[in-house]
């Protein structure tokens, strides 16, 4: 066993042990009620909620894909992804998250299907939203597990399956026992890990390369095109991207549910202000590391360049940093994975079983037991997916962000347009989501993008359908509308 493998294994074991301790502590604090297990009693203060939401939002893409993108496309990666997210996500926290939090607190809603189904008094809206969210979330879970296995394989030369299985097992354990409280507090720890390791790697690698100015001037001399956007980014793509990753975040069920766990409006306010600053603090370091990598480890193809961050750590920092690098990558992956597993189990328990077998689910505290069983079932499905590694999983994950974004017009209408109807919402959800695979896998509809990404025409279609079908169909009862809007007015 090499020195680097021992270092990676030692840090991995310590890191996973800390997570289990937090999970156990959360288990001791959690009451066996649905409200406490799934929502932690809606009592999170600003610090926990900020980390819970931010760490959930950061995935393997942040630690691997972002530096890889900077390696290939340069410094514009900051504006393209980070600034777009820093602008749109907090705005959505107010426009959608705050109103969802108000009605969630008042009526006890936990999941998006539950809340929006009640808004329109429509089981169909709840079921369609449930199907779409599950369809887009399951592949996302599987790709996270695959990412965890690949990270251990590339950093510690340890078999892929060991990494995938150990991450999945630990995540499953602390989620089963700790519920929402366990996943949120581990997010605080995981968020601190990837933020601190990212900053540490940034400064240490810069020093190892002669300082910030020296290495960046070398990029300027050898690859000046990477320090600007012309040739690397297309303006129409740049504009379109605002509607994909940043807008999708509010529709992620795992982010949406966490917003409902805030103790007070002050908690949400703190989250809204701090969120853009977190992007400014945490994204430039990983972008610069990828940028510098383009001159010190040149010639990598697209797939290999996604490992530029671990490569830079391995090349320029002591071996112990390899272990910390793995912990940071795992932290970003696991903080998302646990939230998705818990959210999916909540939706399966409440939106599927709770809808069709309400008496069975609510008797004798079965809701929490079923929630825990679903987490184990989801972990097994994810392990199977990680073993098979089917190509279609990646394909679905690729257009999942667009799919999530397409539910945002319906969410906005639910909170701001009294006249919107269940039929309008169904049309705006179903038709664009049925067309989505045709944009990604066939050439038939490419004429309708006018050079933009498919999300732009689909978003327009979704909004138009929402308005037209709502106006053509019978308005919802005043009682149903007032139930929500009386809280906002």
């Amino acid at each position, binding site marked *: 066993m090499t020195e680097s493998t021992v270092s990676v294994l030692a840090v991995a074991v310590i890191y996973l042990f800390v997570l289990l301790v937090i999970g156990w502590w959360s288990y001791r604090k959690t009451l066996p009620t649905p409200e406490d297990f799934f929502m932690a009693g809606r009592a999170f203060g600003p610090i926990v909620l900020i980390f819970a939401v931010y760490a959930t939002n950061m995935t393997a893409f942040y630690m691997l894909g972002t530096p890889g993108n900077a390696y290939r496309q340069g410094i514009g990666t900051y504006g393209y992804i980070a600034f777009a997210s820093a602008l749109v996500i907090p705005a959505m926290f107010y426009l959608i998250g705050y109103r969802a939090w108000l009605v969630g607190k008042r009526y006890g809603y936990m999941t998006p299907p539950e809340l929006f189904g009640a808004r329109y008094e429509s089981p169909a809206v709840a079921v369609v939203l449930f199907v779409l969210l599950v369809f887009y979330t399951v592949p996302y879970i599987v790709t996270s597990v695959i990412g965890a296995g690949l990270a251990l394989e590339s950093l510690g030369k340890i078999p892929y399956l060991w990494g995938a299985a150990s991450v999945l097992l630990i995540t499953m354990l602390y989620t089963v026992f700790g519920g929402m409280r366990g996943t949120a507090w581990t997010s605080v720890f995981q968020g601190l890990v990837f933020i601190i390791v990212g900053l540490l790697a940034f400064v240490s690698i810069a020093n190892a390369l002669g300082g910030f100015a020296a290495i960046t001037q070398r990029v300027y001399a050898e690859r000046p095109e990477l*320090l600007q956007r012309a040739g690397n980014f297309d303006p129409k793509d740049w504009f379109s991207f605002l509607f994909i990753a940043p807008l999708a975040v509010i529709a992620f069920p795992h982010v949406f549910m966490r917003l409902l766990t805030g103790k007070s409006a002050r908690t949400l306010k703190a989250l809204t202000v701090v969120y853009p600053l977190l992007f400014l603090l945490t994204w430039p370091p990983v972008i610069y590391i990828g940028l510098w990598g383009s001159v010190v480890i040149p010639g990598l193809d697209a797939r290999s360049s996604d490992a530029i961050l671990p490569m830079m750590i391995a090349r320029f920092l002591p071996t112990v940093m390899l272990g910390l690098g793995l912990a940071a990558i795992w932290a970003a992956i696991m903080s998302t994975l646990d939230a998705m597993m818990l959210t999916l189990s909540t939706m399966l328990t409440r939106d599927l079983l709770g809808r069709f077998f309400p008496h069975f689910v609510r008797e004798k505290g079965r809701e929490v037991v079923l929630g825990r069983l679903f987490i184990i079932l989801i972990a097994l499905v994810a392990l199977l997916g990680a073993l098979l590694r089917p190509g279609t999983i990646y394909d679905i994950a690729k257009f999942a962000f667009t799919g999530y974004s397409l539910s945002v017009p319906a969410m906005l209408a639910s909170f701001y347009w009294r006249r919107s109807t269940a039929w309008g919402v169904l049309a705006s959800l179903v038709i664009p989501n049925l067309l989505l695979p045709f944009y990604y896998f066939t050439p038939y509809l490419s004429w309708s993008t006018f050079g933009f990404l498919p999300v732009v025409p689909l978003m327009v279609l979704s909004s138009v359908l929402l308005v037209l079908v709502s106006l053509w169909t019978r308005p919802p009862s005043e009682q149903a509308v007032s139930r929500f809007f009386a809280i906002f007015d």
Partner: protein
Amino acid sequence: MSLRERIFVLILVLFVVLHLDLWGWGRIEPMLFGWIPYHIWYHGLLTLGVALCMIWLIVRVWPRDSSQF
């Protein structure tokens, strides 16, 4: 949607226009401190602007009595 909420949405649209930044698409200089090119300091300042906008949002737009629940 209140008047202030509409102003907030208009400010968001203004940030989107500034984010498109077609006038600085191929620009590198000035390079601050020798390692911060135009794109990073420009979009870094915009990010700080967004944070200030969010402070204005929570002070002037966000309903004051919203903690009652």
